[in-house]
């Protein structure tokens, strides 16, 4: 099977290419990159007036399966990924049960194959049941397909447990991914602590709740030598701590979400939970520091923290409503909205090159022999209508907003899984 992506502006930072090039994929791998390649026998994707990049990888996604398939399934979540321009996602382990056993991880890999949209890289739990007590079987989980470990959604409260986990798993090529929020400092907060929470009479989580755990985890990373990744950084101080650790040789990377780059903690005047998320949306000082940190290279990756929920759940009172919202289908546009000065080469690094490197997975380039995973996108303004999402989660604070950029086509393993607004599983796409 051959697929030719024709006439697009190829941005491939690894190869140092920013030029109009055709990309030919044969049997799932890139075979040639060049000008005016022969389309003979190939399925042609017209990328004229569009940008062609190595497939985007969202390294922070909640697929909800197993256990909460009313919120999302592997099939709907990966369809959303494809529609959003992602050829692969890393799925977080806070499913029910948690991804702490070989059988569950194997089942996820199998179901992702069957769904046939984006690739799925499972992230295993750091502790059994994400309970923060007993270590998960890291080597077994790695062999089953896990690419990283995390107790995402919470943090092991006991620093001794986390330290031992990091030391035990130190020689595995899987980063530990930290969700940094101190549960005691956070308390029953529903938003950021600040003038807005004070005025509204709502419980607020201080940035300090994140900062102290970032500091703790960076020190454990230094102590253990384990490669570490800080998820969804939301404060200026966290960024300073990461810079401090890097200057001392700690192997640390970090990501930021579209919502923390775009929104502030001023979205709760109606007491609705649409913008309730962990860590919470912060004030302008933090938001501006996050944007600057993407531009100055402190932040390595853009990741959505795609967290779909049922509409009824999000309509509950703020205290009861769950945290998070859909992110996969607004991401490309939201990043461009927040960071208009970001170069395309850096944009592709943040969405493809670096996530592949951090997770240790193939991709990040379209050099000959690389996986045939391609994202085609363009700067074409569009208006978000969450009702049209492929994700089951129709909730997002971006609903109704105009975004400047969008995915036009998504190619996974040489198969066109998304084009002209519609998704198609790999098997059907190659039939």
């Amino acid at each position, binding site marked *: 099977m051959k697929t030719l992506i024709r006439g697009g502006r190829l941005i491939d930072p690894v190869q140092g290419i920013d030029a109009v090039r055709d990309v030919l994929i044969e049997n799932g791998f890139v075979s040639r990159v060049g000008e005016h390649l022969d389309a003979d026998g190939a399925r042609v994707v017209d990328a004229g007036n569009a940008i062609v990049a190595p497939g985007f990888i969202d390294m922070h996604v909640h697929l909800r399966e197993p256990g909460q398939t009313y919120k999302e399934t592997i099939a709907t979540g990966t369809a959303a990924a494809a529609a959003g321009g992602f050829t692969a996602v890393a799925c977080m382990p806070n499913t029910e049960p948690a991804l702490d056993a070989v059988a569950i991880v194997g089942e996820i890999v199998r179901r992702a194959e069957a769904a046939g949209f984006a690739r799925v890289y499972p992230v295993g739990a750091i502790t059994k049941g994400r309970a923060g007590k007993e270590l998960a079987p890291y080597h077994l989980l790695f062999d089953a397909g896990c690419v990283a470990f995390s107790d995402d959604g919470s943090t092991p409260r006991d620093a001794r447990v986390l330290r031992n986990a990091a030391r035990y798993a130190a020689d595995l090529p899987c980063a530990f991914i930290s969700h940094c929020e101190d549960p005691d400092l956070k308390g029953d907060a529903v938003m950021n602590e600040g003038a807005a929470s004070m005025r*509204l*009479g709502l419980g607020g989580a201080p940035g300090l709740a994140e900062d102290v755990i970032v500091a703790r985890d960076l020190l454990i990373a230094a102590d253990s030598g384990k490669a570490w990744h800080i998820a969804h950084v939301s404060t200026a101080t966290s960024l300073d701590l990461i810079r401090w650790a890097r200057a001392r040789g700690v192997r640390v990377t970090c990501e930021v979400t579209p919502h923390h780059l775009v929104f502030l903690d001023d979205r709760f005047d109606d007491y609705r939970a649409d913008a309730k998320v962990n860590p919470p949306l912060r004030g302008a000082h933090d938001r501006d520091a996050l944007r600057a940190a993407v531009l100055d290279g402190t932040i390595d990756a853009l990741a959505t923290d795609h967290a779909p929920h049922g509409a*009824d759940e999000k309509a*509950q*009172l703020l205290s009861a409503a769950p945290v998070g919202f859909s992110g996969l289908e607004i991401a490309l546009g939201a990043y461009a909205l927040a960071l208009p000065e970001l170069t395309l080469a850096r944009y592709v690094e943040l969405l493809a090159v670096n996530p592949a490197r951090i997770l240790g997975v193939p991709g990040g380039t379209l050099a000959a022999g690389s996986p045939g995973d391609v994202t085609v996108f363009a700067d074409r303004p569009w208006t978000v209508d969450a009702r049209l999402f492929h994700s089951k989660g129709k909730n997002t604070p971006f609903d109704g907003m105009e975004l400047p950029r969008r995915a036009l086509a998504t190619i996974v393993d040489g198969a066109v899984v998304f084009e002209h607004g519609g998704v198609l599983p790999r098997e059907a796409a190659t039939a």
Partner: protein
Amino acid sequence: MPPRSLLDVDDLSPGEIVSVLDRAVAFRDQLPARDLLAGVPVLNLFFEASTRTATSFTLAEQRVGADVITFAPGASSLGKGETIADTALTLHGIGVRVIVVRHPESGFARRLADAFAGHVVNAGDGTHAHPTQALLDLMTLRQEFDRFEGLRVAIVGDILHSRVARSNIVGMRALGIEVTLVGPPTLLPPEFAANGVRVERDLDAVLAGVDAVMMLRIQRERIDAGLLPALDDYTRRYQLNRARLRSLRTDAVILHPGPYNRGIELTDDVLDDPRSRYVAQVRNGVFVRMAVLDLLVNGAPVAA
């Protein structure tokens, strides 16, 4: 236009606040005929225990002739299954036109008002707002000083958890009152110093300069939550007592939203002091609530 609700004091313009107070004063001077809300079904929906506010609202509703229904569900009965929107639809379908609601969660009144096709009066939502309390406090102050502009008021105590303080800050600032908040940083974070409001830590330095001091209730659970040490440590700096009464001007007044804790935020000396206005406050509450119901249901009075 959806029916008007009173969720916080800033749902009223400064002129409307004065108009409500004028109406309340008129009701106090002469009770109106019991027909202002004749036949209007008013539901008192209290998810949180209340003696003074529930009694005051009920009396106010009866004095304007409303059909009064009182229902005190457990705090958790809504939200289990039935959504706010479903509840609002049901109550409106039954015929309820006004809901007076109290709930332990901030924002509940707003969420209910957004879903309900009638009027909502917020009788206290979490730590957010308690507008009729603020209005009765303003009525009490005006009765005393006959003006708002330039008055100096100190609010003392657990500001962070006080819906009374929040609504009073909103109302007082709208009317030109100078507001000083006093309390320890755990109960009065510095973020409250906004929109012209001052934050002070030293009650003794503030007392001599104010026209009124409002003492807020201190709850023992703040000690359990690690926000306060022993109560006597708090009272040493923030209790209004015999010694501090001497700093207060003779023409100043003392307000307390109740229920007060004798021996904690204030001592018996304060309640016995001629400057205490607690009884005037609760008395004014009924007339203010009558005026609010009249305004929401019947609209502004015809200009004289």
